[in-house]
Each structure stands twice: as structure tokens, then as C-alpha cells.
């Protein structure tokens, strides 16, 4: 390509959305340039993590077999904490790791995974340039025509903003406002190294199996929760919180995190491990409700987190699979449009085809459910107290269950009416 020639597509950001798009376009013979600000793909990226394999398989059949992934998730867990106590529900499903075909999901570390995926895209001909931040888009006559990075301008038929949550590029292009603090959570996470055998013992895992755990009641009543994923020889442990609430509560996130790590039900899981990495990242919380009114304009498509494609259901966060899907849809939209001006509407159609928008819509109720403040303190504490009473034997005459439950509701400030309302709200949301 000479200096004056332009690319078919420029993709900003080498996360899963950007790379999936680049991979699909390059395979279709398009001249693609991916620009990533980190020194390596994945270098600055943070996720919980788990990846649902169906998305990789959609990108290319068989891809999840060779992917740089950690453990196949066969144990789905929910943990409810309160001071000094914990309840863990452990759902084991061997069907999540079938004899034939890929397991449903794997735990994942992004630094490894993103770099591997980027390598695959390069193999099929995508150009990936790292260590460069895109500063702006080139706009001419109302159309996006290319990008600006430092002193350099590069033109392309279309630009794909895959630059993640709070997308600077989408803001520059006027598609989203600066994100209000109430619509994002902040995730903090540590990667804690332990021997493979120790991890398998502590979580009762067979060779290569993994656990994914969501944790409630570990945020001192603040809107948010914890997560834990077992990797090959590390554990990903983190908290997601709402920045505004944390600020109002006046306790630093780092302190909340330390207390979480030291909870007597968490500490034995990570004891003896050493923290090899830590980081923080934003995550959109509004799901379908938070999607920008327009996901494209002429010359520009938004994909992945830049478009707000995240489902936070309280028991799992999904964003990587949706990012990959949207990257594929964007590429298909571009390839199906002989007139590039039509790529935007075509992209939306492709997302319908891949079930992306319907999936987001179907999950749109979770936000209402997760906005019930009692989910973060009263209910988890109540659950543990109730089980505590159930299992307590101390020689005294136990109160009848009904009575004890009533007393507990009172202790936790929950009225029957509220319980009923929240239940109904939950039912409607689901």
C-alpha cells in the first residue's frame, strides 16, 4: 500500500470486538488496519473472566480448541457473604464440558487471550499496529473519513470504534455523551498465583476444570458484588462497585477489597498465593437501556463495549462474547454493502441475525432487579442468618422456623410487603 492509498477499514482498539472484526474483514480479503494504544494487544485490558465459546466458534469453527484459554467452567457458583459467614451454591454440570464439541465457557486471562487472537488476525492478513493511540477521527462533509494519531492522518472507507467502554471515539463522533457515573461500575481485580494442584484441591476440580463464582454481600451494602474465577495457576478475584456510591460511603475501594480478601470464607481460597497482577476497569451497567440511540453514522460503526454491549445479570457479566459477535456483525455488514454508506443499517441487520440485539433486549430486566438496594445487604445477610438459625444446635429450645423468619425479617428491616414487591419486581425482570 502506498502513502496515498487508503485502507478499506481502520479499527480502533485490539480488544475482542476489534480483533473479531479485523479477522472477519481480513479473511474476506479487505485491507484492514487495527490501531491499539497498548504496547501489546490485551496489554491494558481487564476482564472478570470468563469467555463463552459459542462466540469464538462463530468467528471460526474450531477456534476455541486452540485458543489461549484457562479452565473449562464446569462449576457455576453463587456465594452469599455476611460478616463471618458464607453460603455457597455450587452447581456442577458435566454437560458444560461435553465429550464432543467445545465446553460452554472457559476462564480467561486477557493479556494472553487478546495477544493470541490478534496473532490469528495477523495470520489471515490484518495489519495490527500497537503502541499508538488514536486521537481523533477525520470528518469531512458530515462523514467520517479516517483517523488522526499524533501527527499522522490515515484515510479509510470506514472506521470501526472498538475502543471499549466510555468510548472516546464515539464521543468525538457525537454518538454518545460523556458517560454519567451512574451508568458504569468500576471493577478492581487481582490475579493471585497458586499451584495448579492447590487450586484444583480447594475448588474440587478435576484436571482442567474450573469454577466461576459470583459473590453477593461482600460490598458492605453498596450496589455491587464480587467475582472469582479459577485459571490454570492463578485465581482472578475482584469486586465491581458503583463509583458514586463508593464515594458517598467514603471508604476507599482498596480497603473494601482488602476486607473482602480477608473474609474468613474467602481467605482460605487464596491463602499462600502471591498477587502477580492487579488493575481496575470500568464496566457498563445499563445493558440494553444504556445503548446509544445510534450505533453508527456514515463512515463509523460502534462495536463491543464502545457500543455498550454488556449484560450484567448479577450472576454473570457477559461482554467478551457480545464484543466478538458485534465485531463479526460489523464486518459482515461492511462486506454485504457494495455502497459503504449502507454499512451502518446493514450492521444492525447483521446483529439481529446473530441474535445480538435480541439477547441484549431479553436481558434488559436485570438492571431493575439489580437496582433493588436490598439485594446487596438485607437479603444476603438474611439468608445467612436464616441458615445460621437452621444449623444452630446449642441445647436451647429452637424457636419455630416461622417465628424465627419473622424475627429475622424484622431484624433486617424487611417488611412482608417489601419482600412481596421485590419478589414481584424480580419475577417481572426475569
Amino acid at each position, binding site marked *: 500500500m502506498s*502513502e496515498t492509498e487508503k485502507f478499506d477499514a481502520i479499527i480502533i482498539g485490539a480488544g475482542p470486538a476489534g480483533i473479531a472484526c479485523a479477522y472477519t474483514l481480513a479473511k474476506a480479503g479487505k485491507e484492514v*488496519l487495527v*490501531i491499539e494504544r497498548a504496547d*501489546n494487544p490485551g496489554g491494558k485490558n481487564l476482564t472478570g473472566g470468563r469467555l463463552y465459546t459459542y462466540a469464538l466458534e462463530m468467528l471460526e469453527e474450531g477456534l476455541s480448541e486452540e485458543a489461549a484459554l484457562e479452565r473449562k467452567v464446569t462449576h457455576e457458583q453463587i456465594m452469599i457473604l455476611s460478616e463471618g459467614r458464607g453460603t455457597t451454591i455450587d452447581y456442577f454440570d458435566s454437560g458444560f464440558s461435553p465429550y464432543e464439541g467445545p465446553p460452554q465457557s472457559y476462564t480467561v486471562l486477557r493479556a494472553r487471550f487478546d495477544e493470541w487472537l490478534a496473532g490469528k488476525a495477523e495470520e489471515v492478513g490484518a*495489519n495490527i*499496529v500497537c*503502541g*499508538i493511540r488514536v486521537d481523533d477521527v477525520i470528518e469531512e462533509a458530515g462523514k467520517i473519513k479516517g483517523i488522526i*494519531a*499524533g*501527527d*499522522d492522518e*490515515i484515510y479509510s472507507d470506514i472506521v470501526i470504534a472498538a475502543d471499549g467502554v466510555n468510548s472516546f471515539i464515539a464521543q468525538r463522533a457525537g454518538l454518545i455523551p460523556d458517560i454519567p457515573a451512574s451508568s458504569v461500575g468500576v471493577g478492581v481485580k487481582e490475579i493471585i498465583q497458586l499451584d495448579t494442584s492447590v487450586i484444583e484441591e480447594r475448588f474440587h476440580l478435576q484436571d482442567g476444570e474450573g469454577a466461576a463464582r459470583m459473590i453477593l454481600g461482600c460490598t458492605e451494602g453498596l450496589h455491587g458484588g464480587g467475582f472469582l474465577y479459577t485459571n490454570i495457576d492463578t485465581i482472578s478475584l475482584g469486586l465491581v462497585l458503583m463509583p458514586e456510591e463508593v464515594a458517598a460511603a467514603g471508604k476507599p475501594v482498596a480497603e473494601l477489597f482488602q476486607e473482602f480478601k480477608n473474609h474468613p470464607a474467602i481467605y482460605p481460597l487464596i491463602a499462600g498465593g502471591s498477587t*502477580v497482577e492487579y488493575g481496575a476497569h470500568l464496566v457498563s451497567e445499563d445493558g440494553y437501556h444504556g445503548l446509544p440511540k445510534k450505533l453508527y453514522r456514515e463512515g463509523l460503526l460502534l462495536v463491543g463495549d464502545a457500543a455498550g454491549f454488556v449484560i450484567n445479570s448479577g450472576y454473570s457479566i457477559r461482554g467478551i462474547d457480545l464484543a466478538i459477535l458485534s465485531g463479526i456483525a460489523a464486518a459482515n455488514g461492511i462486506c454485504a454493502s457494495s455502497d459503504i454508506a449502507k454499512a451502518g443499517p446493514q450492521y444492525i441487520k447483521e446483529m439481529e441475525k446473530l441474535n445480538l440485539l435480541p439477547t441484549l433486549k431479553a436481558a434488559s430486566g436485570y438492571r431493575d432487579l439489580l437496582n433493588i438496594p436490598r439485594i446487596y445487604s438485607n437479603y444476603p445477610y438474611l439468608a445467612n442468618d436464616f441458615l445460621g438459625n437452621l444449623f444452630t444446635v446449642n441445647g436451647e429450645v429452637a424457636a419455630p422456623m416461622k417465628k424465627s423468619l419473622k424475627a429475622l425479617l424484622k431484624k433486617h428491616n424487611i417488611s412482608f410487603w417489601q419482600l412481596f414487591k421485590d419478589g414481584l419486581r424480580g419475577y417481572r425482570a426475569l
Partner: protein
Amino acid sequence: MARIVACYKWVIDESDIKVNPDLSINLQNSKGKISDYDKNAIEAAVNAAELLEGKPVGLTFGNSKCKASLKDALSRGLEEAYFINSEKADKADGRVTAAALATAIQEMGEVDLVVCAEGASDTYARQTAPRLGACLDLPVISSVNSFTIEGKTLTAIRKLDDCLETVKVELPAIIAVLPEINHPPIPGLKAVMNAGKKKMVEFAEADLKVDLNPKNQVLDLQAYVMERKNIVFADGELTEQVKNLVIALKKEGVI
């Protein structure tokens, strides 16, 4: 056209080096990079090439992974990159490195100036430039803090322990530069994109007909931990605490 050669080393990124509890060193998951000081050498070579209206080229001696460095080096303003690919680079001593580089430089043809860093960020052995001078029978100026070139005369200011020395030499010559000599800019997008299209030449060990077996052998590599005394002066008034601190420091011979 004048030819200026920047020699650089592909080293392990310090931030990826982990020390195991038994003090052995864990290089798992470590990535490579161009030695930070060599980025100064590359920038100095590019600047010298402007003064000489010549062509700046890069040369490196490393194992096969080092190939990844060529694009990075070329994005920093070099016009061609030469790479001596040998697994023996891992165990090379100063003599081997200089012999490999010197043979390649002779292979490349006429050269006006060779720029090295004073030392590499991993070993900082400071042997490459002087030994290269011996191999190629060229004058060497080390510890170069700044230089100018007029015609074929290079004038360098050397930064020594407590003085600055100005030295003049007729090219061809070799200089070893200090990190203070310049601030290498971060390559821009087009520079990075164009890097992949520039000329890259690879020498295999066999091409060079030079003995790459080291005479110095590294037998063991261990981290060491600084023993701290952890003395806290908490008793008495502040003035007394300071007095005790001073006494303790004197006893240790630090003041």
C-alpha cells in the same frame, strides 16, 4: 553515501522478571524489548545520519525471538535492519558479541560511524564498543554525552566521573553514547506502519564464519535480597530519637 550503524540488543523486559522464593529467577511469561539505552543509540545514529547526509541502519545479534525487534528498530528512523540470528547469542560474552557484530559490519560494506550504547540494560558490561573497535581497528570514544560532526570530523563531549572531556576523531569511528544524549521520541503511526516495508537482512551463524562460543561461561544466576535491619527509633523525645539515629548511622559507617 555515508553509512551509520546503530548496534542494539534485544533484552528481557525488566518488569517481567520475577524472583522465586528460593531466589532463583523466573523468566516465564517474560517479553523482550530493545534495551532502553539502545533506543538512545538508535536515535543518535539517526541524528548522525542527518548530519552526514547518510543512511542509518540497525544491527543486532540475538536468538530467533529477536526478529521481533526489527520492525520496532525500523520504526525509530533506521532505514535498514540487519540481524545475526543465533541461539548462541544467549550465552555470548563480550568477545563473542563484538566478533559477531564486527563480522556483520564488514559484510555490510563501508561504514562511517558505529553507534553503541555505553552498556546494555541487562548486563551493562560496557564491552561492546571497545571490543568492536579492536576487531575493526577503529578509534572508539566512550561515554559520549553529546557530539557534533563537521565534514568527516566528529567532536564528542565525554562525561566522566567529575569532568567533561572534549575529544575529536576522524571518521570512520565508533562511539558509545550515554542515555542523557537524547530523548528518543515514541514512533508515530506512519513510522510504525512503514517499518514493515523497509529492508531487513538476516545473517545465519554459518554466513559469518566466526567462532561464537564464549570463553566466559555463566554458571549460575541468582537474585539477592537486601538484608534490612528494621530498627525503629521510637523511644524518648524526637531530639533523642534523632540523636540515636545519628549514633546508629555512625556506627554503621554510613556517615
